[in-house]
């Protein structure tokens, strides 16, 4: 099941550049939360803080608190945390030298799983959840790079799901895909929320409106507004949100 996230007074820096300026946000379990905002507003930094990837870059700094079901993520080993908080990136990034099957089980192997039966069962389960199984079940040993862009992205989702996280972070997962592949990903996200808490960064307003239960609007490192998607896209409280979603700026 998905876990809830609570973010309090989160601040983040790249060198002297403060990119997040005190974010407070509650993220409900088993919901899709969309993060929207113009380029450079801090939305990717925000999701990268949640699995502690931000702090891996030289010169970066994070302050504040993030809890996962009440437990601070900073009290946990980052590698163990990333098992619980999976991430899918904008550009599909299957490991180029690995087969489809090896891509999916890579995380499990890193975590020490060696039993072939278990690995195969887990690969099938993950590929089914990623709605890719039927398309690749007869060619699991083909290179991950042999798949189409949309399939590669679903492969990356399957890889993230294989380690059984409770939270899935997605940073513009469909921005490089055609409309059909995008629809596949969106349908998948809708199905996955039954078992996962999903945060998705997107520049596509209509995508956020279609798939997210709640939407957060970031601007200049601040959280301007966070509320039910139906309200954000019909009657936002803040004029800056209205100006952004109607395309008046950004």
């Amino acid at each position, binding site marked *: 099941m998905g876990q809830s996230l609570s973010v309090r007074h989160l601040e983040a820096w790249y060198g002297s550049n403060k990119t997040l300026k005190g974010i407070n946000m509650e993220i409900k379990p088993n919901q899709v939360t969309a993060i929207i905002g113009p380029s450079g507003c801090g939305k990717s930094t925000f999701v990268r803080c949640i699995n502690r990837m931000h702090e891996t870059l030289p010169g970066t700094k994070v302050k504040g608190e993030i809890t996962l079901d009440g437990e601070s993520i900073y009290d946990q080993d980052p590698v163990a945390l990333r098992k619980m908080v999976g991430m899918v990136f904008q550009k599909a990034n299957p490991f180029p030298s690995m087969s489809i099957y090896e891509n999916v089980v890579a995380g499990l192997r890193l975590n020490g799983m060696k039993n072939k039966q278990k690995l195969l069962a887990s690969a099938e389960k993950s590929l089914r959840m990623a709605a890719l199984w039927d398309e690749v079940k007869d060619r699991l040993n083909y290179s991950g790079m042999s798949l189409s862009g949309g399939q590669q992205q679903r492969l990356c989702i399957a890889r993230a799901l294989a380690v059984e996280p409770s939270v899935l972070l997605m940073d513009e997962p469909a921005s490089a895909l055609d409309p059909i592949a995008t629809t596949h990903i969106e349908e998948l996200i809708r199905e996955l929320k039954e078992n996962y808490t999903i945060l998705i960064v997107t520049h596509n*307003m209509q995508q956020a409106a279609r798939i997210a239960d709640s939407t957060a609007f970031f601007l200049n490192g601040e959280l301007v507004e966070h509320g039910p998607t139906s309200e954000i896209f019909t*009657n936002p409280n803040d004029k800056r949100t209205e100006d952004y979603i*109607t395309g008046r700026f950004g």
Partner: protein
Amino acid sequence: MRQSLNDGQMVLTNLLKEMGLEVERILKGCMQTLITLDRAQAEFWIAEDHLVNDFERQVDDACVRLIATQQPVAKDLRKIISAMKISTDLERMADLAIGIAKVTRRIEGPLCKPLIDIPLMAEKALVMMRQGLEAYSREDMELARNLAAQDDAVDHLYNQVVRDLLVIMTKSPEYLDQGMYLTFVGRYLERFADHATNIGENVIYIATAQRQDLNK
């Protein structure tokens, strides 16, 4: 920013203004046929109905095009959806006006009384329609809210018209048919004003996303 969407909304506003002018022309013409009992003119105006129907289709097409190509949200979306509703109101207002010309067709002989309150109702209803469209164009909520009081005045006149005609029909049964038809006219004009309040309600919805009943 969003010049295409802004341009599209301007096209909608102008279409609705033109449609309003057409409705005004038809109502004035139809009222004149009633006052003068000119059946030939009544036929002319009845045949003009299609002009407003054409405007309604143009507004619908423009709205569908904007929704499909611009993916409007929030206030932009409310404004476009409201334009579709307002065009439907205007089309019905034209139908009601045409109803008056159809009454002219049926009235036999001279009028049972000089028409005073009915032309006054028409005048007030037209002012309301103009004001509703002006409120839409300027997104002026106060102008829109002001329509409620004007609608009350039209309702009051309608009640007066019905009372007067009932007295005539009771005293002079030979005017029963005519009295009934003129009551219809009063009803058409009262409904015309109600549609004008709908325009005002849409203006409030555009600005606030809230529904407010101006026709209580």
